[in-house]
């Protein structure tokens, strides 16, 4: 059978049986899928396209990032970079769906807590030796620890965040308090003094704000207090949770006491209560600075101090970070690592900032992980709000990067909140969370 197309070329048509047609129809998704993958492979041979996925999606973040990418592509005309952004809450979903649908990006920007899952599932490509050497040599010990899993570095750290006690200077002044609390006893006492109530007993100014309903908002400050009380989160070999030790119980008891004193409020993720001056203190990360700068409170009224510590303890802040990694399925892994090396290394001299350092300090108001970037932007990082956070990195510890970390953290958050609400004693709440954690660690170790 023959027919003609519009150009007059003759096309041959072979008779097709119903069975063949049905078989063809059933196979078509696989054929199209294979064809689409093939297109990408062929394309990569002559011109490199790097797809970068990040949660830095607002115009203030995306525009400067694209400018930096454009700078690189102008210097490397064979490279094009496509920036894909999603909201933080959707980032993990986007990564999993991209992986399933064969649309995985070449470069991921991700939260280091996801490392165990990503490494265990072979989502990430191991960096070449020169990249690993660069990271271990140019970043602080805690930052390198946060970018590592199974004793191996998995990418370039970007923004690093740690926790400090943030307080309202005006409220301190009004209460006659001259210095931020340093010990647990002072902490509870200060929270009481800062609390104001009206004639009906209603809190009009809370001494301390707990960020309830948000796992990081609950667990990160609590873990900072735990470490500052000499406690441990998990055994070094990841075999057992240790946060239910006496040090942990004491910290949760302290928090519960503050709740029972009537010195606290449970705020939501908006943190609007502190920003509007209705809260005396909270424990929060440095990234919050950008929000505070835009708030009506005014940065002159915001003070930052080290985490209060228990008897015999010293202030230790929890630190977490984000990092750039390359996908294991990327057809352009070499080009991706070359680009990331350029992005994260000083531009001209060893003293200069990296493009990433410029972006983090200008667009995000964040602290760059690279030590040379911290020196290059010393003026910005010596800001009264930022400096205590930078100084705290000297003694901070990375959030434990352990298998099942997210699930353990969420369970712990719920148990801590349960103790705050008086549903369980601090001991019972932490023992329940530790039992869950041990089960998860055991399960992950077996898989």
């Amino acid at each position: 059978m023959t027919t003609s197309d519009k150009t007059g070329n003759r096309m041959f048509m072979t008779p097709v049986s119903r069975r063949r047609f049905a078989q063809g129809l059933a196979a078509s998704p696989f054929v199209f899928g294979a064809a689409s993958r093939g297109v990408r492979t062929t394309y990569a041979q002559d011109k490199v396209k790097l797809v970068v996925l990040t949660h830095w999606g607002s115009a203030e973040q995306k525009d400067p990032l694209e400018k930096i990418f454009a700078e690189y592509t102008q210097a490397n005309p064979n490279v094009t970079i496509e920036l894909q952004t999603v909201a933080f809450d959707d980032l993990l979903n986007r990564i999993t769906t991209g992986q399933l649908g064969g649309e995985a990006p070449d470069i991921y920007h991700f939260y280091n807590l996801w490392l165990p899952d990503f490494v265990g599932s072979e989502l990430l490509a191991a960096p070449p030796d020169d990249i690993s050497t660069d990271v271990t040599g140019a970043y602080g010990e805690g930052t390198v620890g946060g970018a590592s899993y199974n004793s191996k570095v998995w990418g370039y750290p970007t923004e690093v965040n740690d926790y400090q006690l943030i307080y309202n200077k005006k409220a301190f002044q009004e209460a006659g308090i001259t210095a931020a609390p340093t010990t647990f006893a002072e902490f509870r006492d200060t929270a009481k003094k800062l609390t104001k109530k009206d004639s009906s007993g209603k809190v009009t100014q809370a001494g301390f704000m707990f960020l309830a309903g948000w796992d990081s908002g609950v667990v990160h400050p609590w873990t900072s207090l735990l470490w500052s009380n000499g406690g441990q989160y998990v055994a070094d070999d990841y075999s057992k949770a240790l946060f239910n030790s006496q040090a942990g119980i004491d910290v949760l008891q302290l928090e519960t006491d503050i709740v029972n004193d009537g010195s606290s409020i449970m705020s939501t993720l908006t943190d609007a209560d502190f920003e509007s001056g209705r809260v005396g203190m909270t424990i929060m990360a440095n990234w919050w600075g950008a929000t505070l700068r835009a708030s009506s409170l005014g940065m002159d009224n915001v003070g930052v101090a080290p985490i209060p510590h228990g008897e015999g303890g010293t202030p230790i802040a929890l630190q977490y970070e984000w990092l750039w990694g390359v996908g294991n399925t990327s057809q352009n892994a070499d080009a991706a690592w070359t680009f990331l090396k350029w992005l994260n290394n000083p531009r001209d001299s060893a003293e200069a900032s990296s493009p990433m350092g410029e972006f983090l300090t200008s667009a995000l108001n964040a602290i760059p992980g690279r030590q040379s970037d911290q020196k290059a932007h010393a003026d910005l990082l010596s800001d009264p709000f930022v400096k205590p956070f930078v100084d705290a990195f000297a003694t901070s510890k990375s959030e434990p990067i352990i298998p099942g970390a997210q699930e353990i953290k969420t369970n712990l958050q719920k148990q801590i909140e349960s103790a705050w609400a008086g549903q369980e004693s601090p001991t019972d709440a932490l023992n329940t969370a530790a039992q869950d954690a041990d089960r998860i660690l055991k399960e992950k170790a077996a898989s």
Partner: protein
Amino acid sequence: MTTAEQVLVRPGRARAKRRVNRRSLAGYAFVAPALILLVVFALGPFLFTIWVSLHSWNMLTPLTTMPFEGAGNYSYLLNDDALFRETFGNTVYFAVGNVVVSVVLALSIALVLNGPIRLRAFWRAAFFMPYVTAPVAIAIVWRNILDSNWGMLNGLLARVGLPEQPFLDSLNQAMPSLIGVSVWHEVGYYMIIFLAGLQAIPYDLYEAAKLDGASTWRLFWTITLPLLRPTMLFVVVVITLSSLQVFDLPFILTQGGPVNSTNTLVMYMYETAFKFLRMGRATAMAVMLFGVIFTMTMIQLRLLRERE
């Protein structure tokens, strides 16, 4: 039958069979688009869900490599997962509260608006309006209204001399508050359905009963309610289905808190799947929820159709 007879009969039978086959083929061809859509978008995902529920899978590894768990996920949920039981209890609490309050309120409003009342169209529109508002917007607005420290409702209570309430911050009041917001959001829709049902009841039945001296209460119990049975069936089934799958309202309004008191099964399912990357366990929850919804719907259909 002899060979000769077979030879005589066979061509006729074969022609008839071919005709039937052609007609069947045409029938299949007509239903094929709908059938394909059903298989691809409903049956396929459903079977896939059951299959995944028998495995352990984090969505980062290929499907072909996921370890087989058998009934492991189901066994864990039923025997070891306290949070699964808690969230299931919360979901049932929400569903029962939502069904009872919504049905009573929607029917009451419909009865009032079905009678002689001024500005009837205005009231109907006013009650229906919340339903066309996005749940996300509703949740944000109600979050501010119900804020225990600086919320508008507590301000109002204080002005009239009543004690302020913790609402969403209380373990005991959070779920009733959530039910209240849900009812406020949906009651207008169910009210419209009840109104349509009421208007379909022949008026002469009421006239005849009134002539026999029936009271208003008796009219309601012996005419209105029995004749509203199909409408009631529809409303109860629809509210039950939506209540057992509630997600958006608690997700935005309370994030499941305080301390899991408003954490529903679908929220926990979402967390298990997309936060903990335990798709096998999450799909096992989905299959179990399907079983519950299916059973509940069958029971409701049986109970409400019993006397028809």
